[in-house]
């Protein structure tokens, strides 16, 4: 091991000394020089080690001061992967931040903001979230990342690898997979990616002993039966073609187990389903259909067979699970769904739409049309499995989910229009909006790691939503009041309340806002009724320390008691339902009565994040009867978290109700 070049070491120490000694006035200039030095040091292993060994001095010099990395306790390991690829100083800060965490974890450096245990956990999470970087030989190429940044990232993870082994993070990987799969997302790429990477590493190193839950996931995603383990996909195809009915039946049962256990389908599932597509008996076993699903299949045997033939291929394997749930929703009973799906089977895509689908991660021999059919089945089967990817399009994802649940025919109709014309039209207050004639929406760079239905629809929905928001912008109230009903449809109740006052930029009449929500949504006050349709609400999204990050759109799905606590169950179209909104406000995705794809929080905790909701005015009468303690409890949480970012108008007299 050697030191970096002497001129670098000298510059490093000189600049660090200046940073340390000179006052805040010179900070920007000194930091700028220091970043230049770090840029060079992070290009070599020696340099990284040198930074690591001097991390205490770097942190002590105020290097992180005034940046997002300042307080180590507030960092979010799931953001590291995105930030580190940005390039320039952002990448450098991120790298130094990881070295700080590693040093804390190793006990080389101590900090008030984190403990060795917490830091270790943080680094583990970073590794789990970035397995492709951690195991470079297993990695797909870092797309869109500049060469010099790639080099730095690889060196950093190589450095981390000296301290972290696969064995030491295996139990966390299990939990990670478990929680991803419990949410039953449509896009399972992340789970599959973890499984692939871990499995490759195990084949090489074998440092994971015994049969673990990790093996279950690996089986589900890659090798769901003994035969699948033994045979390559093409050998397996030959084998099932020759196998007798008894063997097929057993194989269907085996593959059904992993499918239903994890929600993951493998290439083998797709091969087997194609083989048995004309045999309802085997389809039922393979998909593990319940009575409703079986009945739906029996009524539409020919159609389903054709659907499988068109849609289910090794590249679209996830549609095997989607089809199971689709059948169990008995959607083919609805004529609009049947008709639109039939039409989808012979659809000719607009060339640009086909190109977008090709651009998304899907590869293989399936055509864009086939991908669209496959994912349409998934979206209809798993309404809560729709996600927004890394796009700022929570509204669009929320809409697709809502339509899939309550207006599947309308959703498919929109898919057909957008897919064939690359355009979508909606009415807003009597005027027609055509997406093809509108400016860009919120998304500037589209993340294609989405289901195909979203790839087809979201660009249009995003533009239309953005245009509606613009048109409703200067009316002195939250534009969602007008936009939500126009965008989502007539399910949206006519009443609307927002805690945020657009005219004064303050939080106004919050007490009233809460009372009406309790009166209309809390079973103790509304007569014990649950929601009929999802309620698209706006929330203040907060970081782990409760500080305001921004606005976010979620849907309240239902309100129910679990283990004695009243909870709100909601759809978070964000990539991940598990987040930390404050030290003790952590939405869960399992363990508290959540159905697959739902997040939940205790009622009052969720309400403390709410800033806008719809309600039925005729049901708001009970607002005066809501217990003051309940309201005060929420106000206290709100004021101590996102509320610090706003002025409050609580001193106003209580409005008469």
């Amino acid at each position, binding site marked *: 091991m050697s030191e970096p070049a002497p*001129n670098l070491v000298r510059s490093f120490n000189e*600049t660090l000394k200046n940073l340390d000694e000179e*006052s805040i*006035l010179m900070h920007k200039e000194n*930091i700028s020089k220091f*970043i*230049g030095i770090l840029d060079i040091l992070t290009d070599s292993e020696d340099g990284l080690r040198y930074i690591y060994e001097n991390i205490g001095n770097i942190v002590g010099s105020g290097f992180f001061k005034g940046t*997002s990395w300042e307080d180590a306790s507030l960092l979010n390991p799931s953001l590291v992967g995105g930030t580190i690829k940005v390039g320039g*100083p952002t990448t*450098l800060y991120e790298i130094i931040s990881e070295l700080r965490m590693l040093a804390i974890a190793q006990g080389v450096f101590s900090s008030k903001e984190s403990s060795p245990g917490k830091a270790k956990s943080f680094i583990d999470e970073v590794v789990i979230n970035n397995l492709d970087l951690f195991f470079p030989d297993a990695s797909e190429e870092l797309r869109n990342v500049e060469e010099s940044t790639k080099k730095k990232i690889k060196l950093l993870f190589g450095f981390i690898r000296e301290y972290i082994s696969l064995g030491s993070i295996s139990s966390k990987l299990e939990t990670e997979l478990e929680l991803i799969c419990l949410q039953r997302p449509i896009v399972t790429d992340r789970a599959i990616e973890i499984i692939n990477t871990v499995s490759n590493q195990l084949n090489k190193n074998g440092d994971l002993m015994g049969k673990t839950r990790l093996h279950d996931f690996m089986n589900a995603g890659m090798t769901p039966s003994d035969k699948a383990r033994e045979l390559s996909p093409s050998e397996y195809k030959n084998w099932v073609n020759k196998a007798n009915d008894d063997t097929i039946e057993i194989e269907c049962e085996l593959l059904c187990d992993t499918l239903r256990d994890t929600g993951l389908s493998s290439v083998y599932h797709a091969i087997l389903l194609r083989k048995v597509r004309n045999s309802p008996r085997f389809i039922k076993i393979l998909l593990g259909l319940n009575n409703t699903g079986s009945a739906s299949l029996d009524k539409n045997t020919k159609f389903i067979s054709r659907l499988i033939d068109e849609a289910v291929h090794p590249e679209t394997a996830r549609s095997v699970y989607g089809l199971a749930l689709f059948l169990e929703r008995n959607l083919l009973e609805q004529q609009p769904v049947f008709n639109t799906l039939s039409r989808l089977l012979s659809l000719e895509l607009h060339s640009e739409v086909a190109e977008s689908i090709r651009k998304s991660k899907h590869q293989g021999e399936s055509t864009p049309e086939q991908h669209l059919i496959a994912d349409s089945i998934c979206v209809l089967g798993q309404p809560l499995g729709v996600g927004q990817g890394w796009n700022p399009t929570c509204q669009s994802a929320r809409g697709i989910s809502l339509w899939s649940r309550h207006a599947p025919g309308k959703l498919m109709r929109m898919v057909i229009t957008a897919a064939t014309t690359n355009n979508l039209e909606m009415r807003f207050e009597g005027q027609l909006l055509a997406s093809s004639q509108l400016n860009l929406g919120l998304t500037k760079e589209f993340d294609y790691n989405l289901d195909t239905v979203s790839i087809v629809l979201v660009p249009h929905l995003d533009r239309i939503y953005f245009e509606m928001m613009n048109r409703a912008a200067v009316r002195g109230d939250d534009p969602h009041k007008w936009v939500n009903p126009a965008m989502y449809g007539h399910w949206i109740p006519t009443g609307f309340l927002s805690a945020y006052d657009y005219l004064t930029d303050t939080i106004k009449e919050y007490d009233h806002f809460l009372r009406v929500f309790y009166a209309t949504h809390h079973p103790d006050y509304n007569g014990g009724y649950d929601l009929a349709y999802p309620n698209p609400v706006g929330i203040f999204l907060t970081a782990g320390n409760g500080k305001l990050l921004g606005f976010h759109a979620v849907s309240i799905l239902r309100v129910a008691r679990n283990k004695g606590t009243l909870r709100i169950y909601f759809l978070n179209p964000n990539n991940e339902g598990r987040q930390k909104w404050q030290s003790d406000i952590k939405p869960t995705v399992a363990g508290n009565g959540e159905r697959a794809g739902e997040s939940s929080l205790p009622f009052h905790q969720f309400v403390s994040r709410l800033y806008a909701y719809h309600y039925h005015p005729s049901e708001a009468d009970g607002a005066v009867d809501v217990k003051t303690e309940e309201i005060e409890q929420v106000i206290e949480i709100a004021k101590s978290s996102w509320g610090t970012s706003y002025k409050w108008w609580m001193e106003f007299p209580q409005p008469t109700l």
Partner: protein
Amino acid sequence: MSDHAIALLGWTAQGIESMKKLGQQYVVVSFPEFENYANENDIPFVSWDFNSWGDENNSILLKEKLDAFNVKVAVPLYEETVEWAGALNSLYRDDPRVLNRAFLFRNKAVMKRKAMLAGIRVGLFEEVHTKDQVYSFMKRLNEANLQLPGEEDSWVHLKPFSAAGTVGHKLLRSFDQIDEKVIDKDFPCMVESHLPGKEFSCEAFIHKGKIRFLNITEYIRLGYSNFVPAGPELQSKRQQILKAMQKLVDSFGIEYGMIHPEWFLTEDDTLSFGEVAARIPGGHIFELIEKANGFDPIQAFVLCSDPSTPDNVIEDFFPPDDAEPNIYAGSLMIYPKPGRITHLHIPDELKEDPYFEAHTLYEPTEHKVSDNREGFGNHYGTIFFKGEDSKRMTEIINHFENVDFYK
């Protein structure tokens, strides 16, 4: 240190830092937009608009404000504050000519005339008010240079009377270029003949009319790159340069402070005077002086500006004149080519060069956002070098000047 305060005219973080380190009482005089920041950081501050002058805004009123801080000396940090410092110091020293001298520094034609009167060689120059006068000037130069038909026109430099460094400087190589480059807004201004030779600058720290320290800065390319101290070729003329400098100081009647003139040295060892400024030079020259000589030039500027600084303090502050710095400090300013920048690329050959010291091409980042790449495009930064051989320094800087750091 002195028991009175110094007024720093103009905002520079480095200047404030230097005063703190020196233990010198100070007050910063600058535009109102700095006031909040100054208050937040406990920096003594007087808000002042240097750009306007009148009954409500003059040196008497400014002095009254500064009296509250017990100010006895004003130090100009930027070109625009030079005459304000002159006005204040003429009040402090009760010498009206101090102000006149400051005006001298603010008009390039007047300062040349003054130098010429003292017998210092200057180029041919003229104050002009119209384009026609520029034509006539070039025409007369051509005549003087005995131009034959078909030969190139004589080069003419057009400069605003009072602007820092190369601001507004236009080089006119032909009559056609007068048409192309000169606009009505340029007038009135000064035109001068092109001075041949190697251009360099001096930074002389003067106390009681005597040069206490002279630095010579070697220019590699005007406005882009330079290094300190100058290489052996220029340093071998040090005595000649020192003599010319003292002559300039004497003829201008400069008693206290620092001047930063530019000179041209021809192969036959003739020195021509270009222009002179009395504020902190550009091109990171102060930073380079500090690196090469080990003293803080802003502190030096302040100490020399104060008539009450004792001689021994001044003598102890500077290295002896025969001290030979063994290190060269250079800087190269990088201007991205406009309109085609997506990201910054620092080549390995720079990072691996032993003369490479630091760069400021990266702006410190404050936000964790993924789409801030365009941000790099607007700014330029500087690359700093340090090494023992001035020839190698020149080669390296010349080389990297042609490297495209922004792609």
